[in-house]
């Protein structure tokens, strides 16, 4: 977190005292925000109702603006860019006070982190002044143009190409797994600017408006019916060189920090999310509700399942705190964020499986009213938490190689020009 977090925390003047901040936040939240409904706690489930989703996005922008006006937006962002210049401790207080209230969920990840944090770290003064205040006011929703259909875990293997043309760049290619690109404004885009050097040395980062003629946004249907993810096809998209972030061909320096911020997810001090999290997955309490509806909480084997789910939640939360604190104090490197990511991914899978077990035959067929109504579909989607935002396999690589310093995996693409790297099974094999 080094550079960015200290920039936020190390303001010269006296920081607002945590208790008075808490009082201010609490009183403002209670008089300005609605109590969260159960649906709002589990966003992203609009079952194809676009109007409802757009209304929710609009409400998020509105809340974000109110927070901004109240001095509660961008807690750890510098005041120069419209933030509050406060500490991660203040963010934590705000998160605690937000519990049970609506909050601008769609503004957080990826807009505030990793997108805005990457801008903060690598943007020019002009870029920061132009975009960060707009983001904090809810005027700009950002998406990561990072993953590619051909890429999988190999983010640095981006095939999207940017070719220089005077003071501008021409982008062509496809990006995927952007959440809600169809209602977002800007994309932070990793593109290849040089095919004749090894892959990490030929990338650059750009920003571009999503709603323009060269960008076609296609919504992807997931197996739970959700259409929150999108794929974008970029055809001759023109980006001025002033919208490049970081140095030419040095995009991997940006990308490394970008992915660090991505792994921090909701533990980042740059995002506001009610403490205890409302970020998807199946919660132990939902297992409890199923077991109760079936009248099975008296069965020790069912208590075991419910207890295991709860155990994993509790331990995961404590682990996140420990890892965050360890990175902050320097005990562990930034790369250790992968530890929390790995645990959350694997435990979410396990909890979905426990829920299916608790549900019994109600996991095979159900009514909408049943406590188990989303159990099987959650189970179908169980691996999402281990795939999205960097797979658990990549997390395991990072932990073993970057935290435990074990020898790096052999890659065949490190020392050769990117254009010569094998990208598919040879014909005939």
């Amino acid at each position, binding site marked *: 977190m080094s550079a960015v977090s200290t920039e936020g925390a190390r303001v010269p003047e006296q920081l607002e005292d945590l208790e008075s901040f808490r009082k201010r936040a609490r009183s403002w939240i209670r008089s300005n925000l609605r109590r969260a409904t159960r649906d709002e706690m589990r966003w992203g489930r609009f079952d194809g109702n676009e109007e409802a989703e757009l209304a929710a996005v609009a409400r998020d922008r509105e809340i974000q603006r109110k927070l901004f006006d109240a001095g509660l937006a961008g807690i750890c962002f510098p005041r120069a860019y419209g933030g509050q210049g406060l500490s991660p401790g203040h963010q934590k207080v705000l998160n605690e006070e937000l519990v049970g209230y609506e909050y601008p969920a769609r503004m957080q990840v990826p807009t505030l982190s990793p997108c805005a944090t990457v801008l903060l770290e690598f943007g020019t003064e002009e870029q920061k002044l132009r975009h960060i205040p707009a983001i904090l006011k809810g005027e700009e929703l950002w998406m990561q143009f990072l993953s590619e259909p051909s890429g999988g875990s190999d983010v640095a293997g981006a095939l999207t190409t940017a070719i220089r043309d005077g003071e501008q760049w021409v982008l062509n290619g496809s990006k995927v797994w952007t959440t809600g690109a169809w209602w977002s404004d800007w994309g932070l885009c990793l593109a290849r600017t040089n095919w004749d050097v090894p892959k990490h040395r030929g990338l650059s980062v750009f920003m571009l408006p999503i709603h323009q003629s060269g960008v076609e946004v296609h919504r*992807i249907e997931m*197996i739970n019916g959700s259409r929150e993810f999108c794929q974008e096809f970029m055809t001759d998209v023109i980006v001025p060189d002033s919208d490049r972030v970081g140095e030419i061909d040095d995009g991997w320096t940006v990308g490394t920090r970008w992915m660090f911020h991505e792994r921090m997810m909701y533990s980042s001090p740059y995002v506001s999310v009610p403490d205890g999290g409302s970020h998807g997955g199946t919660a132990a309490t939902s297992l409890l509700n199923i077991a109760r509806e079936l009248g099975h909480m008296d069965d020790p084997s069912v208590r075991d399942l419910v207890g295991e789910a709860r155990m994993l939640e509790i331990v995961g939360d404590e682990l996140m705190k420990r890892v965050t604190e360890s990175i902050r104090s320097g005990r562990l490197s930034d790369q250790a964020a992968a530890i929390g990511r790995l645990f959350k991914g694997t435990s979410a899978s396990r909890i979905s499986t426990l829920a299916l077990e608790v549900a019994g*035959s109600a996991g*095979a067929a159900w009514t909408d009213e049943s406590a188990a109504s989303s159990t099987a579909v959650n189970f179908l989607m169980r691996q999402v938490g281990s795939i999205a935002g960097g797979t658990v396999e990549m997390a395991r690589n990072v932990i073993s190689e970057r935290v435990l310093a074990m020898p790096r995996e052999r890659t*065949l693409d490190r020392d050769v020009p990117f254009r010569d790297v094998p990208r*598919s099974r040879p014909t005939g094999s």
Partner: protein
Amino acid sequence: MLLALSSDQEFVRETTERFLVEQTPPNEVRRLQRDTAGFDADYWRRGAELGWTSFLVGEAHGGGTISGAGLVDLSLVAYEFGRHAAPGPLVSTNVVAGALSAHDAQTEVIADLLAGTGIATWCAPELRSFHGSWAPTVEIRHDRAEVVVLGKVSPVEAAGQAGHLLVTGRDGDGITQVLVPASTAGVSIAPLRTADLTRRFGAVTFDDVRLSQDAIVGAPGEASTDVDLQFHRTLAILNAEAVGAMQAAFDMTVEWAFDRYAFGRPLASYQALKHRFADMLTWVEASHAISDAACCAIDEGSPDAAELASAAKAFIGQYGAEVVQDCVQLHGGIGVTFEHNLHLFLRRFTVNRALAGTPAEHRQRIGAILDGWEAAA
């Protein structure tokens, strides 16, 4: 699936496979998601001609086995159903047809089921794992010449499509089974949602349903052994299908691992993934082994049929879920899109896992069986 098929068995398996490849490719399965029944009547009738509904029915009623072991023969069809996430009420129709045939009951219904022109389903008891046995949720009473059925069963496969419901009920201290035409007064069916694209389920309520005595299948009050057999056959067919779904997902994923490159080399070259493939292959082979062993034991009426049937259901449900989900994981994001075919197998697997007793319920049943056996020995 069985290691050694006779040429007749191989013929049936291969005919079924070819038929399914033609008739229900993945996009057809996706289309059927919006179909009320989840399958076309003509498809089912043609499948019946291939023998899908005949293996548990006696020759006297027009059925017959290929190998002498009807459930083993049927498991080959079920395996192909799993491998192609095929539509159609395979489990329910076969179990009911077999039960009727064993008691020479309702021969016209049997004929319809055999021909694929009729559909039937079983309103089965629930597995009460703690006692290691099943228990009906329906009560059957006798009121002079009439049989009265009361209660609710859920979920029931193909309840909305079936013309006849075989109902297992408590009858005083005994167990009685009756065949209830779906159109009988007092029968109501509430549709349920499910994870499979082509399977359909309902909750069936029997509100003082009255039938004549000849609706009874088998000896009144003495259907307990029949129900055991039906239960074990259900498990066996669900298992064979689940193994087919696992195999399909696994094969796709092996192929993918060779095709997909990351960091300049195929996924199949990464040791961490290779070791997971080794585990998966081991679990897939183990699932085949225990599924087949259970089929044989049930068909032979072997004393360890109950233990093997539950071991198969428990093992396949538990380890198979990890196999299929790891296939999703290895595919990455594309593996959870509706466009990709992988979820068709994941869906079939997931529903079968949840039906007729979960892995934990069957492990508990095995524990109970072991306890009983050891106590008796």
